[in-house]
């Protein structure tokens, strides 16, 4: 039963990892930008949430839409300025620029918020509330809520990309930028919209991370970015449902590792990550092979 519990907890954690990963995946899929500042931006979103709650005293769930909107605006602006400028200068430049951005954000956060970690006060009842199935399996409402949120976000993203006008344009621009221009689409604007959406999901991920654990200036690269990368690679680049699958596989691997030996939690996750890279480098869902 303890194993079943570990797997269930792993699946639920996988939802959070999928939230971490989908923005990274979208940015790479559309603009071919590997955003090394991805995790730090999620951390920024978490701190914005902390700030909003401290100033306005809104309930933590209300801070999510505010943070999402703010992050989306930030995403659009950052894409149209810094990222677009680096995209025009080649793929390597985007790596260097986002790496630099990551360092700036981490040090900025340490400067303003100190290295102390802080949590997003969800209200004790919600953090600790849980329900039990049998004697061994206990599921926290918060974990379940975040998993459901992750699925809803991915579903929404999927529907947006496949049905809406701008979703179609985003896919068209990802396929062939020049051909989209010849149809009258300003690909810079379309990139901006894609970045706004990606950053919106980053905002959700940051708040959720702040609710589940605590925020500190360095978690962006220490955990969020790494787990996001691992989820994307395991699941397969460019596939949203692959991202969820990747997150779940990573989460379950970590939970099983921890069940065997608490020290093995990160090790097991990366072992699976390496295994997938060796055995199936295109990811579990194989659509990534085209890129």
């Amino acid at each position, binding site marked *: 039963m303890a194993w079943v519990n570990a797997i269930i907890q792993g699946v639920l954690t996988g939802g959070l990892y999928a939230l971490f990963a989908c923005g990274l995946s979208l940015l790479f899929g559309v603009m071919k930008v590997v955003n090394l500042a991805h995790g730090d931006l999620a951390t920024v979103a978490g701190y914005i949430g902390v700030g909003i709650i401290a100033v306005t005293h809104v309930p933590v769930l209300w801070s999510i839409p505010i943070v999402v909107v703010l992050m989306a605006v930030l995403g659009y602006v950052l894409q149209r300025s810094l990222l677009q400028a680096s995209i025009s200068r080649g793929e390597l430049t985007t790596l260097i620029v986002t790496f630099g951005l990551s360092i700036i954000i981490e040090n900025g956060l340490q400067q303003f918020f100190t290295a102390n970690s802080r949590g997003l006060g969800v209200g004790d009842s919600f953090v600790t509330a849980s329900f039990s199935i049998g004697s061994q399996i206990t599921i926290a409402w918060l974990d379940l809520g975040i998993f459901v949120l992750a699925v809803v976000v991915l579903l929404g993203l999927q529907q947006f990309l496949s049905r809406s006008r701008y979703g179609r344009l985003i896919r*068209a621009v990802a396929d062939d930028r020049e051909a989209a221009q010849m149809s009258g689409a300003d690909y810079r604007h379309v990139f901006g919209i894609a970045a706004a959406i990606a950053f919106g999901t980053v905002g959700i991920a940051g708040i959720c991370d702040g609710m589940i654990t605590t925020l500190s200036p360095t978690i962006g690269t220490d955990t969020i970015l790494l787990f996001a990368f691992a989820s994307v690679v395991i699941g397969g680049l460019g596939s949203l449902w692959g991202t969820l699958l990747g997150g779940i596989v990573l989460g379950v691997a970590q939970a099983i590792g921890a069940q065997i030996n608490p020290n093995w939690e990160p090790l097991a996750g990366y072992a699976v990550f390496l295994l997938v890279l060796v055995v199936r480098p295109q990811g579990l869902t194989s659509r990534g092979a085209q890129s």
Partner: protein
Amino acid sequence: MSNRSYPPGGRPPVPPEGLPDEGQRYQAGGSGPLLEVRDLVVHHGQLRALSGISLTVYPGEVYALIGANGAGKSTLLRTIAGLHHPTSGSVSYAGKDVTGLRPEKRATAGIVMVPEGRRLFPSLTLEENLKVGASFARKGPWTIDRVYELFPWMKERRGQKTAQMSGGEQQSVAIGRALVANPRVLLLDELSLGLAPVIVQRIYATLPEVLESGITVLLVEQDVSQALRVATHLQCLLEGHTTLEGTPAEVTREQVEAAYFGAHVEPSHTPPPDPDGQRSNALWPGLTPSSRAC
């Protein structure tokens, strides 16, 4: 093989009424030129692709650019579409200078290109490709339904990914995607590239309906006989220079041949004389049916 040689004289069946003089060209509605290119010089890095090309396209014309591989035809078309920046020279459209305008702005203004190699969106379905084309469309007669009337096979297969379609089908989708934008000038880049002659004929058969809807066509064609059949005006390029210009009625087959290979520009490039009997087959090397049906 030899029955694919271009029709006698290489003339279109109905050349425009008279007026051979440059400057008094066939004009629909008596308006000014729709597209005017002046002394265009374009470099690809160090390479000079175009050395001072000028052309004037009037409304209602079918203007054909012909020339061998690497003559600069596609570069010229892409520069008109805004995808290359000229080193010098200008492009004006409907009386306005558009030389500095971005490609997407030119498209929404009415200069729409069917690019070489189709360039469809492979992860999108046929209908989605057309919808992208219609996203920023001008007002006009062309809709997705009208494209389905022009190419009736499309309606049934609109949900299919275009990557699975044949070259001819993909070319039709590319044309449809350009038409739904309701262009005033349609730039067609190498429609026949990689297609079997019978498919090329079928695609060119849709041209009259396109013209009827008031669209002016500027096309690049390596297949000279095809170009001569549809064009009302033509210009031949060779290594970035204009070697011949006129209506198909004015130019002789010998002139086209000389312009195409550059015989009178650089005598050393004159192809060795060969017996007349082989002419019809050997006239356009690399353009025989067998080699084009790839």
